[in-house]
């Protein structure tokens, strides 16, 4: 005799309770505060803000805590929250030229007005585990200097002056928004950039790396990488002018890529562009490389069939929330479909074996 | 102004728009079926049903075209305040509103081969709405349905465009019936 088991609701409640306990961890260890995460795991917070498409360090830190450090889960929490927020309006484009830079490097010029600023980078750390940190996190104060108020013009502007870099046309008054409109292909560049800036860091890193290894290589030089804060302004119709509503930290990367020319145009460099929330330079550089690879058609290059040139492939698979949901859904019950396959394969085998037996009997 | 544009919307939008949509959806799913749709109190000459359809479905993202004598200040103000929808030319409209005599079908969007959904929905206020007259056949109809259509040839022509074409809603008082492009009329 068989009695069907029914326990979905209880099982779910028990799983949630266990999950909460696991998140808290050993109770004899102090609980992580949101401020600690925000202050000490800032790069994780940055990634959650960038891929969650919501600039709010407190909420991002909370999401990381709630997600037990699972970054994609944290991004998902932020996305699901973001989608419930009313849209009050659009900001003016941020002026990255007037960014207050913590870091600014150029690979194309040894020096330039405004100077090279290393900032708080891992770049030249030796990757040796610092066992002192396990016991005591106190650090000596970093040396300080007077803040440098000199302007830091975009490095690209120097190439622009000579006409060496292809000019970019002004964008639309309001750029498209893939969180409000279904993705339609072919996507214009603004839409591609929006998709890339919230794309999974690992995915676009791999894609960008593939272009460096020859799958649609586009010879990128980092003309400039700058990280710092920018004012966000919004035009208020009632006032008749724009007011500053806040500040965001941004990473911007501009690459100079292989030049091209035609019978009518002398040779010019082309560019790739990356702009990401927070201190996220790996992401910003990756974004610039893929942006450039996706521009093959507009720049009259050949489609080499490389993955990074395939807009549909890149845009449809770059979102880690879409990807992880669909990937993980295969652990849900599929026994109805599996049953129909079972019956089909048994039937096909029966028929195939029946045929073989008939053949053997005939021989 | 006789009718304030500030009045006549839903008092409980989430609940009332859900109720209204069920009536609209039933009408579109079952061509010729007359359903109740109420909640809005729009300015004349809009019927209650036509006004309710607009505040249920229209917003900043949908252009509305007011045909003929529906294009009056009171209606324009009411729509703008209640929905925020831009008032546009017939060719750009997602919703077209008027009496049958006022509406010129020739300029309306019928969709494209790749996106047949990018077509206008035409809301026609009728003096009478009843389940008799023209014969309707197609998806949503078990055998046949009947509806007092204001014309035959126009709808016959529209159906030949399928999967492109216009979708019609007929409104009268607080009642609605629909005729999507998939319905064959005779």
């Amino acid at each position: 005799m068989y009695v069907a088991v029914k326990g979905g609701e209880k099982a779910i409640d028990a799983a949630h309770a266990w999950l909460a306990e696991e998140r808290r961890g050993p109770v004899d260890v102090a609980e992580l505060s949101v401020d600690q995460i925000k202050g000490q795991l800032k790069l994780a917070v940055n990634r959650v803000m960038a891929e969650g498409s919501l600039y709010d360090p407190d909420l991002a830190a909370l999401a990381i805590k709630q997600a037990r450090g699972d970054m994609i889960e944290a991004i998902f929490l932020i996305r699901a929250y973001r989608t419930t927020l009313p849209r009050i309006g659009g900001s003016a484009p941020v002026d990255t030229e007037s960014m207050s830079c913590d870091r600014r490097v150029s690979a194309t010029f040894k020096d330039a007005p405004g100077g090279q600023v290393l900032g708080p980078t891992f770049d030249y750390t030796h990757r040796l585990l610092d066992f002192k940190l396990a016991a005591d996190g106190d650090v000596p104060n970093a040396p300080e200097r007077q803040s440098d108020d000199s302007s830091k013009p975009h490095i690209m502007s120097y190439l622009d002056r000579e006409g060496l870099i292809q000019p970019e046309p002004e964008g639309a008054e309001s750029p498209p928004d893939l969180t409000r409109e279904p993705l339609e292909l072919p996507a214009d560049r603004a839409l591609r950039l929006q998709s890339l800036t919230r794309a999974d860091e690992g995915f676009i890193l791999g894609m960008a790396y593939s272009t460096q290894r020859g799958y649609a290589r586009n010879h990128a030089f980092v003309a400039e990488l700058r990280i710092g804060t920018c004012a966000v302004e919004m035009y208020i119709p009632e006032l008749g002018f724009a007011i500053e509503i806040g500040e965001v930290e941004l990473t911007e990367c501009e690459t100079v890529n292989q030049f091209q020319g035609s019978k009518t145009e002398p040779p010019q460099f082309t560019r790739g562009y990356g702009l990401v929330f927070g201190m996220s330079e790996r992401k910003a550089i990756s974004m610039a490389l893929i942006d450039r690879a996706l521009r093959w058609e507009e720049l009259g290059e050949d489609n080499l069939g490389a993955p990074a040139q395939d807009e549909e492939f890149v845009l449809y698979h770059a979102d880690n929330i879409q990807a992880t949901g669909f990937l993980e859904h295969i652990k849900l019950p599929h026994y109805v479909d599996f049953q129909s396959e079972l019956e089909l394969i048994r039937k096909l085998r029966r028929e195939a074996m029946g045929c073989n037996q008939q053949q053997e009997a005939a021989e | 102004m006789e009718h304030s544009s500030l009045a006549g919307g839903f008092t409980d939008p989430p609940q009332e728009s859900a109720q209204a949509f069920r009536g609209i959806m039933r009408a579109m799913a079952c061509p010729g079926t007359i359903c109740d749709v109420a909640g809005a109190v729009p300015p004349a000459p809009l019927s209650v049903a036509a006004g309710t359809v607009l505040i249920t479905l229209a917003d900043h993202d949908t252009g509305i075209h007011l045909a003929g004598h529906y294009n009056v200040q009171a209606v324009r103000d009411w729509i703008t305040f209640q929905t925020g929808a831009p008032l546009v030319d017939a060719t750009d409209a997602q919703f077209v509103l008027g009496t049958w005599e006022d509406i010129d079908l020739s300029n309306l969007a019928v969709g494209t081969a790749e996106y047949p959904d990018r077509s206008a929905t035409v809301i026609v206020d009728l003096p009478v709405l009843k389940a008799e007259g023209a014969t309707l056949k197609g998806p949503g109809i078990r055998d046949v349905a009947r509806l007092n259509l204001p014309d035959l040839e126009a709808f016959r022509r529209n159906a030949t465009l399928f999967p492109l074409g216009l979708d019609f809603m007929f409104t009268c008082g607080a009642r609605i019936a629909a005729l999507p492009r998939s319905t064959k009329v005779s």
Partner: protein
Amino acid sequence: MTDYNFAYLDEQTKRMIRRAILKSLAIPGYQVPFASREMPMPYGWGTGGVQVSAAVMIQEDVFKVIDQGADDTTNAVSIRRFFERTADVETTETTTDATVIQTRHRIPEEPLTADQILVYQVPIPEPLRFLEPSEVETRKMHALEDYGLMHVKLYEDISAHGAIATAYAYPVEVEGRYVMDPSPIPKFDNPKLSMPAIQIFGAGREQRIYALPPYTQVVSLDFEDYPFEATKADHPCGLCGSTDSYLDELIVDDTGGRMFMCSDTDYCGARRAKGHVGAEGTPLQENAV
């Protein structure tokens, strides 16, 4: 839960989905793009179905959710709870009591009526996707009514296996125009697709909504000499003895012993309540669970 709007979605989102639903009913079988929202549950777990349910739901509805035909599968429980919390609607496990039914992978055995709405969760709405991965290309094929690729695939099945080797998500042609994926229901359910209830298919991640108005003509693709066949396990249900319902197969002991039982748990329970008992079943007792 008062922090969120009725049925969770904000009104602007509902309007956008409602407009898409109306166009999908006007063009049966055509996949209408819609700006699917990020839901508080993962893509692939019914976000399309949940958005459609939220957009059609009224306070008076009685809501039922099934996954694999069962009301008590964990994801069905989770979605049912979501609407209990966000819309405060009555829920049921009884098919005949429900006004809106959200389903994954099954059509209930009990014939649905004109007063009901069936909402499907759809993973991949594009029936041609596994034959042509590019959306740009498949959109062209639908526009040109060019379904040669699909017929070639079915024909190749026959030459390789002697039969059409598709057991679920079996493609259908709607009103002689669009080829449509009926979602991954077993092909046993395909003949039910023409029904008095409104059927709406929601694919959240893929941002598509499509629909079948009542009594829409739906034909499973086949060939004259290889006609479509709705199949199921050739057994009666072990619990209720039904011989015409779709069956799940269970492994019940270490030696690999099998039993078969209805996938539609409400249908099976209702039969047992009426006194039907299968070979491995026991007469139904109150509170037996």
